[in-house]
């Protein structure tokens, strides 16, 4: 037998003074790291219910990582009554660092016995020596009920031992120890066990004696003549593993497995036991394996969240932070993501402080997505959470995005001023880049378009034109975003061109737009540009196309002649027009010059030889006809190119 281990316990006395009219509270506590509020939270959290028969003992835990502790609460009648005439129960609570207890390791019975001689209040924390658990002695107490209970606990459901009301307290405590000894010692960092629970209250005790099993709990009958079978895979595997060897050898092996474990990791446990020659997990000086996996910490986070143990969560997050952010392997990331999704780590968690929630989100996101947030990562998050709450959006915005599209997609979950503020921080080039490329997200297109149009209307951003030109004026993206509404597509492109160049295009700008590589969606862009250029657009466009067609001079001339309409017959004389001619000395009244057209005379330059400048002023019906022909030609040429 090994030497006793020295453990130092903080303690608290829970009860109420005689004649008190208020609820139970902390009467005294050790002046250690834990204060009254912390002790109160722990004791109420693991309360087994309203006492009827005392004394009773409840083993529990709190904290994770370096702060992990084992707790033992001994509840007895005080022999006093409160102000309402009700008997007062006093609870003596002791907690020791898990790492110290695991060094033995020590049993619940031994811990209880070590503190039994101390009356509370005492002066400061108590240091006692506790003998380590003896596998031989414990194995002698293992029976069918204990084996059944141990295996059933791996389902993560509570287990209630019934028909044990008459069993003395010490025997019940030893049974709890026997069950716990049939599991890896590390599970005690999450195990709660009590010699009695009240099944009508929603307690958090995993293993207990009770008159009836509580809802959702497995029942094990005290002194059962057979092992309770169960179809649950992990139970069957564990029962099989427990059957391979003597209980003394198994208990000894399990006692050495002191790395803290969660019941959520139950699937691994039969394997731990089955690997008889497996390595013993050694304790580092602070009590844990130095190979602390992010997955373990995520599991610990989930445990804390499920139990609403937010103080413990803070500690786990610290460790997660220390683990650092790195790029995980695909396998690791898959594993993290599965756990994050299955255990709802990115849920809303009401009641948590906003600061803690943001830290939780940031660290969990780092584990699930790595050091940068991609669209794929974002989609995975939204698939799991639905529309994210603003704290989650903030946390995601704090991760460097892989592309501006990620930022814009995130901004789609913000409203009003918050979205506007974040958008202002993005350059116009980023806004265009966010829309460009695959996949096209109509929501992103709308946001970026609205912002670009607003910036353009203020005339504030010369960057827009260049950015749009570099991405084909987003014609392809607009076409994909609004596949069923041609008018809307045209409107959006016109607005973008206005944002880039102002309300009308000059020749040079028009040529810039139509000089873009032609694609399936160029028609709408060309029509948009033409509508902003004005009546000379078709001929200019045809001229541009002729220039790009790579034709010989003769062919070009011939092509130009073919689209030139024959001279129109003289128009009927109009008295009013004649009067105008007279007044203006035989000249037509000049058209007012459009702003933004630096060279209005040029735009009506003849497109072929033999058309003297004076004859280019065609009557209106001829101009319209020519425009229609030119547009048809454009479409034909575009389709030809695409073929």
């Amino acid at each position, binding site marked *: 037998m090994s030497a006793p281990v020295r453990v130092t316990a903080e303690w608290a006395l829970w009860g109420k003074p005689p004649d008190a*009219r208020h609820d139970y509270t902390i009467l005294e506590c050790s002046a250690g790291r834990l204060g009254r509020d912390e002790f109160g*939270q722990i004791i*109420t959290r693991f309360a087994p219910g309203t006492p*009827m028969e005392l004394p009773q003992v409840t083993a529990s835990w709190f904290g994770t990582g370096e702060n992990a502790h084992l707790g033992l609460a001994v509840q007895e009648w005080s*022999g006093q009554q409160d102000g*309402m005439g009700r008997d007062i129960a006093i609870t003596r609570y002791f907690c020791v660092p898990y790492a110290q207890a695991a060094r033995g390791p020590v049993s619940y019975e031994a811990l209880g016995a070590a503190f039994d001689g101390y009356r509370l209040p005492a002066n400061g924390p108590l240091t006692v020596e506790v003998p380590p658990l003896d596998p031989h002695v414990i194995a002698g107490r293992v029976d069918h009920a204990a084996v059944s209970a141990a295996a059933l606990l791996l389902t993560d459901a509570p287990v209630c031992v019934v028909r044990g009301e008459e069993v003395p307290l010490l025997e019940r405590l030893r049974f709890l120890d026997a069950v716990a000894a049939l599991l890896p010692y590390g599970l005690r960092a999450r195990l709660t066990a009590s010699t009695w629970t009240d099944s009508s*209250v929603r307690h958090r005790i995993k293993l207990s004696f009770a*008159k009836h099993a509580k809802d959702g709990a497995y029942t094990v009958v005290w002194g059962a003549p057979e*092992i309770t079978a169960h179809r649950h895979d992990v139970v069957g595997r564990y029962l099989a593993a427990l059957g391979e060897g003597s209980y003394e050898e198994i208990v000894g092996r399990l006692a050495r497995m002191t790395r803290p474990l969660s019941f959520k990791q139950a699937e691994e446990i039969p394997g731990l036991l089955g690997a008889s020659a497996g390595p013993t997990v050694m304790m580092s000086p602070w009590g844990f394996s130095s190979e602390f996996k992010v997955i373990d910490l995520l599991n610990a986070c989930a445990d804390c969240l499920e139990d609403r143990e937010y103080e413990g969560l803070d500690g786990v997050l610290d460790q997660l932070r220390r683990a650092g952010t790195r790029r995980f392997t695909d396998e690791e990331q898959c594993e993290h993501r599965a756990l994050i999704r299955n255990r709802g780590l990115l849920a809303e968690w009401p009641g948590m402080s906003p600061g803690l929630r943001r830290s939780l989100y940031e660290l969990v996101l780092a584990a699930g997505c790595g050091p940068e947030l991609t669209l794929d990562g974002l989609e995975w998050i939204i698939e799991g959470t639905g529309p994210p709450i603003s704290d989650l959006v903030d946390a995601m915005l704090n991760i460097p995005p892989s592309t501006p599209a990620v930022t814009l997609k995130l901004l789609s979950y913000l409203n009003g001023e918050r979205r506007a503020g974040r958008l202002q921080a993005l350059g116009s080039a980023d806004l265009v880049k966010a829309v460009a490329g695959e996949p096209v997200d109509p929501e992103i297109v709308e946001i970026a378009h609205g912002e670009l149009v607003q910036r353009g209307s203020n005339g504030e951003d010369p960057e827009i034109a260049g950015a749009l030109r570099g991405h084909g004026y987003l014609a392809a993206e607009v076409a994909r975003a609004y596949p069923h509404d041609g008018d809307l597509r045209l409107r959006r492109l016109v607005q973008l061109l206005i944002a880039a160049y102002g309300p009308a295009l000059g020749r040079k700008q028009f040529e810039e737009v139509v000089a873009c590589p032609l694609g399936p969606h160029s028609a709408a862009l060309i029509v948009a540009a033409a509508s902003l250029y004005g009546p000379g657009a078709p001929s200019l466009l045809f001229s541009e196309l002729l220039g790009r067609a790579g034709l010989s001079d003769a062919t070009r001339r011939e092509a130009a002649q073919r689209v030139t309409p024959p001279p129109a017959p003289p128009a009927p004389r109009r008295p009013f027009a004649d009067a105008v001619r007279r007044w203006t000395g035989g000249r037509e009244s000049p058209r007012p010059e459009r702003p933004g057209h630096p060279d209005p005379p040029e735009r009506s330059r003849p497109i072929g030889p033999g058309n003297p400048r004076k004859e280019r002023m065609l009557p209106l019906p001829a101009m319209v006809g020519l425009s229609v022909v030119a547009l048809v030609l454009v479409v034909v040429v575009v389709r030809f190119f695409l073929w």
Partner: protein
Amino acid sequence: MTPAVQPDPGQSERSDHSIAIWGAPGSGKTTFLAALNIALILKKGPWRVIGADGPSTDFLIEMTTALSQYQRFPPATGALGHYRWFLSRRSEPPRRSWRRRRKPPRAWKIGLDVLDAPGGFFRAERTGYGTDREELIDNLAASRGIVFLFDPIRESKDGDAFAYLHGVLAELAGRMLADDEFGDGMLPHYLAVCVTKFDELRVLETAEKLSLLTPDPDDPYRFPRVDDADAEELFEALSAVSAGGNADMVLPALKQFFRPERIKFFVTSSIGFYLDPLRGVFDPDDFQNLVPEATGTAGGAQNPHDPHGPRAVSGNRFRIRGQAHPINVMEPMLWLGQRLSSGDGDAGKAGG
């Protein structure tokens, strides 16, 4: 190997007839529930309370035993308790008629999910150990009937009834009324406001001074009663003597959030008045059932099976002097149960 008894998650589903008990620490919430079975037994009427699952049946048995056999109050509630009961009304044999045989009346069964929280859970400040506060609000939001216990004795000493009301009420309203689910902006619960400890001298005297005491001709013991119609008046009078001076805010606060037509007042006592076994009727000169016990051992009856056993005592102790005769304990539960069963408040008066 024997097959494992499967956990049954379905059992935890709550019925629509969930009733929560609301009151300050020591206002007698658990004792009120403990007295329900005794009240129904003593009434000798058709109503019975039956546990719907093992733990709820255990509670009925243990509490009835503590109050009737050991004449002791239940210990202070340590955690949020959840009991599933049925209020069951026996079908009576059909009366014979010369015209035709009448059909036997239908048996009634009202399901009750009762939530019993430690009084401290209702404290206004969310400080201390309130990790279960969210659960409490969840449960209150899911319930549709509330028994609100107003302890006039505690109020005269501590004056904190309002403190144990307004915080939770504000949170409950915030949870349930924020999204306009209930069109009129009022909480949907039926509310039985119970003025407790009617057996206390000061409460009885106040009722007498206000001329609110009425005899009940059906009561063989001639216990004094306050009619439900007058209970609100007694409530207001007792609120006026609050030590904190703000008990008069309790009623307006309740009426601000609950529909007035869904509030009913009752004057209750879980242990009732002392009844001299020899006289067999109420004695105005000797009626106190809760008496101080200076020294001695715990409990009224010294029973070897008393789970607490004989214990050394210290401080002021009380004991229940005789058999508990609960007053107006079953009535609020039946009223709530019937209102919740009918769904629209059309159910008739509590039978029995």
